C-alpha cells in the first residue's frame, strides 16, 4: 500500500457546472492530477444508458449530445447530497405536489423517488430501473477521482481528504463520509472548501505578523464565508458562515423567471408548464449570465421554444444585476455574521480572497469590495484547483508525507453549527457553540424532569435557534437504568465530542451510578446503515467489473474485426495476383512467338515472390510484430492477440492453397 494520500475537491467550481479535482503532495509540492482525458478537472457527472454507465468527461459529452436522456449531471451529485437534507426538510409536513417540492424537482433532469424520508434518484440502467441514493452517485465520482490518482501514481490509494462546503451540517458531512466508504476511500478528514482555498492562498506566503484573511466563496450552489488568521503556517479559522442554498443556480432561476414572464407578456403563453422548454431556456440563461460577466449586453435566441414560436430577446448587465440585487446583497449578511462572531472589525481584515465561479460576476466583487471600504479584493487563486490544492496539503500533513516542508503547517478548523440537546420545555441547550475550534469536547450535567424517572430520552440537535423545533434533529438515544429518585436529584452528565472531520460523538453518564451510554451520530442518524454501505460498496465493485469486462469485450471485438478486414484485404490482393497470372498463362496458349521456358520461370518466380510477401504480411498480422502504418486500431501488442490470429492465418492460407 502506498503512503500517499490524495486531496479531492468535490465542489461547485464553475458557474452552473460542478467539477471535481484531485491533487497529491509529491516531491515537496502539490500536483493536480489530470484524468484519462488529460483534463485537470473532471465533470461531476454520471450518465446511465441502456448498455453502460459513464462517469466524468464521457458522461458530460453525452449530456450535450442528448440532454433529455437519463443523465445525472453534476447538479445531481451535489444537490443530490443536498437533496437528502433539503428533501427531508422540505418534504416533512408537505404534500408531494406542493409547489416548492415540485419546483425543485423540475430543475433536476432526473426523477426523484422517495423511500421513507430519503429521496432517491431514479435512473434506467441496462434496461432496469434503479433507485440510487445521493451517496451512491457521489461515490461513483469519488471512485473516478480515486482511479485517476491511482493511474497517475501507479499505486493503490486508500486515504483521502475530501472538501465539503463550509456550512455543511453534520448529516451532510456524514453523507460525504459514507460516499467515500462506498468508493473504498478512507477519509482522513473532511476540509471546508473556504479553508482549503485559504491554504492554497497562504501556503507559500510567509506572514510573520498574523493576518486576517476573509475567504468569500460563492459557487454554483453554495455560499461560504470564512475568516482565518494566518500566521507562520498556522491557519486558524476564526468564524464561518454561509448559505448552502445560494449560488449561481439561484441567479439562473431569477433570469429564468424574468424570461418566462417576458414570454407570457409577448405571446400570452405559459412556458412554465413545459419542462423541456424550461430546460432549454435555463441553459440559455446560464450562458447569458456567464456572458454578462464580461459583456454588458447579451441576447438569447431559442428556435421553436414552444410549438413554432422562436424566442429572441436580450438582456443587459444592469437588468441582470437588478434581478439578482437582493441575492447579491444577502451575501453580506454572512460576511457581517462572520465579523461579529469573531469580534473582528472590517478594517482589521487585511485580505479578502474571492473564490468560486459566481465571484466572476463583477457586481458581486464590487459589493464585497465596497463593504470593505473599497478594498482591493484578491482574485489571484485558481478557483478550479485551489480547493484540491488545499485538500492535498492537508492530506499530506495528516499522512505524515509532507512533514518535511510543512513542519509548521497546521489547520485549526471550527464547527460551523452549534450542537446541543433538546430540553423538555422545547428549548435548545447548545453544548458546542458554533465556531468552536475542533477537536473539542464539552460536558454538561442535566437532571430528571419527573419524580422516580428511570429512563431518559436524549435528543441531539443542531442549529442556532433557542427553539428546539427550529433546529435539526441529528439523533436520539435512550438512557435507562437511572436510579429512581425525586426529580432533579440524579445527575446525568452529557458529553459532546467533535472529532476530526466534524463528526459528533455523544456520551451520557449517570454520575451516581456510573452507567454510561454512548452514541455516535454515525450510528444513529437516519443516514445509511453499515450494511447498506457495504452493499453499495459491493455494487460499486460490480459496476466496475461490469465496466472493465465491457472494455475488454470491446477491445477483443475490435482486434478480431481489424484482423478479419486486414486478412481479407491481403487475401484479395493475393487472389488478384493469382488470377492475373492465370489469365496470362491462358493467353500464352496462342501467343506468337511462343513463350520461352525462361519467361514462364520468371512469371512463376514473380508470383512466388508476391505470394511470399503476402504470406509474410499475413504472418506479420498474426504476430503484430511488424508495425504497419495506417492501421486503424491503435491497440497494444498483447499476448492473447496471437492465439486467435494464428488460427485465422492457417484458415485463410489453407483455402488459398
Amino acid at each position, binding site marked *: 500500500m502506498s503512503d500517499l494520500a490524495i486531496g479531492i475537491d468535490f465542489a461547485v467550481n464553475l458557474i452552473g457546472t460542478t467539477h471535481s479535482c484531485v491533487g497529491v503532495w509529491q516531491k515537496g509540492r502539490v500536483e493536480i492530477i489530470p484524468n484519462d482525458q488529460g483534463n485537470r478537472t473532471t465533470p461531476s457527472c454520471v450518465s446511465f444508458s441502456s448498455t453502460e454507465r459513464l462517469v466524468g468527461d464521457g458522461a458530460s459529452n453525452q449530456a450535450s449530445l442528448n440532454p433529455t436522456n437519463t443523465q445525472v449531471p453534476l447538479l445531481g451529485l451535489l444537490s443530490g447530497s443536498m437533496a437528502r437534507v433539503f428533501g427531508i426538510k422540505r418534504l416533512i409536513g408537505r404534500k408531494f405536489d406542493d409547489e416548492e417540492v415540485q419546483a425543485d424537482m423540475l430543475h433536476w433532469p432526473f426523477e426523484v423517488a422517495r423511500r421513507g424520508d430519503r429521496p432517491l434518484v431514479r435512473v434506467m440502467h441496462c434496461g432496469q430501473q434503479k433507485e440510487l441514493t445521493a451517496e451512491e452517485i457521489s461515490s461513483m465520482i469519488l471512485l473516478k477521482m480515486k482511479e485517476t490518482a491511482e493511474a497517475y501514481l501507479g499505486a493503490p490509494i486508500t486515504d483521502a481528504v475530501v472538501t465539503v462546503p463550509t456550512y455543511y451540517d453534520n448529516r451532510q458531512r456524514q453523507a460525504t463520509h459514507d460516499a467515500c466508504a462506498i468508493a473504498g476511500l478512507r477519509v482522513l478528514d473532511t476540509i471546508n472548501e473556504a479553508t482549503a482555498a485559504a491554504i492554497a492562498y497562504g501556503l507559500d506566503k510567509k506572514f510573520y505578523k498574523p493576518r486576517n484573511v476573509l475567504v468569500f466563496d460563492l459557487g454554483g450552489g453554495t455560499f461560504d464565508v470564512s475568516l482565518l488568521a494566518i500566521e507562520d503556517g498556522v491557519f486558524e479559522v476564526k468564524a464561518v458562515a454561509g448559505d448552502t442554498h445560494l449560488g449561481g443556480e439561484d441567479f439562473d432561476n431569477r433570469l429564468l423567471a424574468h424570461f418566462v414572464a417576458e414570454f407570457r407578456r409577448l405571446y400570452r403563453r405559459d412556458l412554465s408548464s413545459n419542462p423541456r422548454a424550461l430546460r432549454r431556456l435555463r441553459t440559455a440563461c446560464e450562458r447569458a449570465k456567464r456572458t454578462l460577466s464580461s459583456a454588458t449586453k447579451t441576447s438569447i435566441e431559442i428556435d421553436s421554444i414552444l410549438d413554432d414560436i422562436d424566442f429572441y430577446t436580450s438582456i443587459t448587465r444592469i437588468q441582470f444585476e437588478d434581478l439578482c440585487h437582493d441575492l447579491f446583497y444577502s451575501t453580506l449578511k454572512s460576511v457581517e455574521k462572520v465579523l461579529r462572531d469573531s469580534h473582528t472589525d472590517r478594517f482589521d481584515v487585511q485580505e479578502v480572497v474571492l473564490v468560486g465561479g459566481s465571484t466572476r460576476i463583477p457586481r458581486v466583487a464590487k459589493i464585497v469590495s465596497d463593504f470593505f471600504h473599497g478594498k482591493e479584493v484578491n482574485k489571484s487563486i485558481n478557483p478550479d484547483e485551489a480547493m484540491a490544492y488545499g485538500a492535498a496539503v492537508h492530506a499530506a500533513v495528516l499522512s505524515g508525507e509532507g512533514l518535511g516542508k510543512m513542519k509548521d503547517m497546521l489547520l485549526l478548523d471550527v464547527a460551523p453549527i452549534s450542537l446541543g440537546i433538546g430540553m423538555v420545555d422545547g428549548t435548545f441547550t447548545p453544548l458546542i457553540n458554533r465556531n468552536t475550534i475542533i477537536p473539542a*469536547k464539552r460536558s454538561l450535567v442535566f437532571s430528571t424532569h419527573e419524580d422516580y424517572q428511570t429512563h431518559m430520552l436524549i435528543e441531539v440537535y443542531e442549529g442556532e435557534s433557542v427553539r428546539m423545533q427550529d433546529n435539526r434533529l441529528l439523533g436520539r438515544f435512550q438512557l435507562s437504568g437511572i436510579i429512581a429518585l425525586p426529580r432533579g436529584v440524579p445527575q446525568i452528565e452529557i458529553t459532546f465530542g467533535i472529532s476530526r472531520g466534524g463528526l459528533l460523538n455523544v456520551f451520557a453518564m449517570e454520575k451516581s451510578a456510573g452507567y454510561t451510554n454512548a452514541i455516535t451520530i454515525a450510528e444513529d442518524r437516519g443516514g445509511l446503515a453499515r450494511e447498506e454501505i457495504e452493499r453499495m460498496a459491493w455494487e460499486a465493485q460490480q459496476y466496475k467489473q461490469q465496466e472493465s469486462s465491457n472494455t475488454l469485450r470491446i477491445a477483443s471485438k475490435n482486434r478480431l474485426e481489424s484482423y478479419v478486414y486486414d486478412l481479407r484485404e491481403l487475401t484479395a490482393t493475393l487472389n488478384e495476383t493469382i488470377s492475373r497470372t492465370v489469365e496470362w498463362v491462358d493467353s500464352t496458349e496462342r501467343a506468337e512467338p511462343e513463350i520461352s521456358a525462361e519467361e514462364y520461370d520468371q512469371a512463376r518466380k514473380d508470383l512466388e515472390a508476391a505470394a511470399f510477401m503476402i504470406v509474410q504480411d499475413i504472418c506479420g498480422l498474426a504476430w503484430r510484430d511488424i508495425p504497419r502504418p495506417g492501421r486503424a486500431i491503435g491497440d497494444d501488442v498483447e499476448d492473447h492477440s496471437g492465439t486467435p490470429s494464428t488460427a485465422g492465418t492457417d484458415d485463410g492460407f489453407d483455402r488459398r492453397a
Partner: protein
Amino acid sequence: MAEEEQASAYEVLAVEAEATEADIRRAYRQRSLKVHPDRHPNNPDAAQKFHELTEAYNLLLDPIRRSALDAQIKIKNARKLRFAAFDSKRKNLQEELEERER
C-alpha cells in the same frame, strides 16, 4: 481542584500574566503546533492535551473569566505571602487546621 486547573491557564499557554490578547493568540498557535492531534496521529493523549490548551485559550480570551482567574491568583499569592510572613508557630497551627479540614 478546579482552582488548580484554572490557575495553570497561563502555564498551559506559557504566557505571562500581563500577556495581551495578541500574545495569547500567538502563543496558542505556537503551542497548538506542538500538541494538535493532526501532528501526533499516533498519540492518543494529544486530543486531551489540545483540549486543555483550547480551554485555557478560551478562558484567557474571555475578559470576565480572565479577571476572575487573575483575582484568584492574586488571592492565592497574597495568601502565600502572608503564610510566608507567619512565624513557625502560626504556620504549624494553620497546617494543622487545614489537615483537619481535609
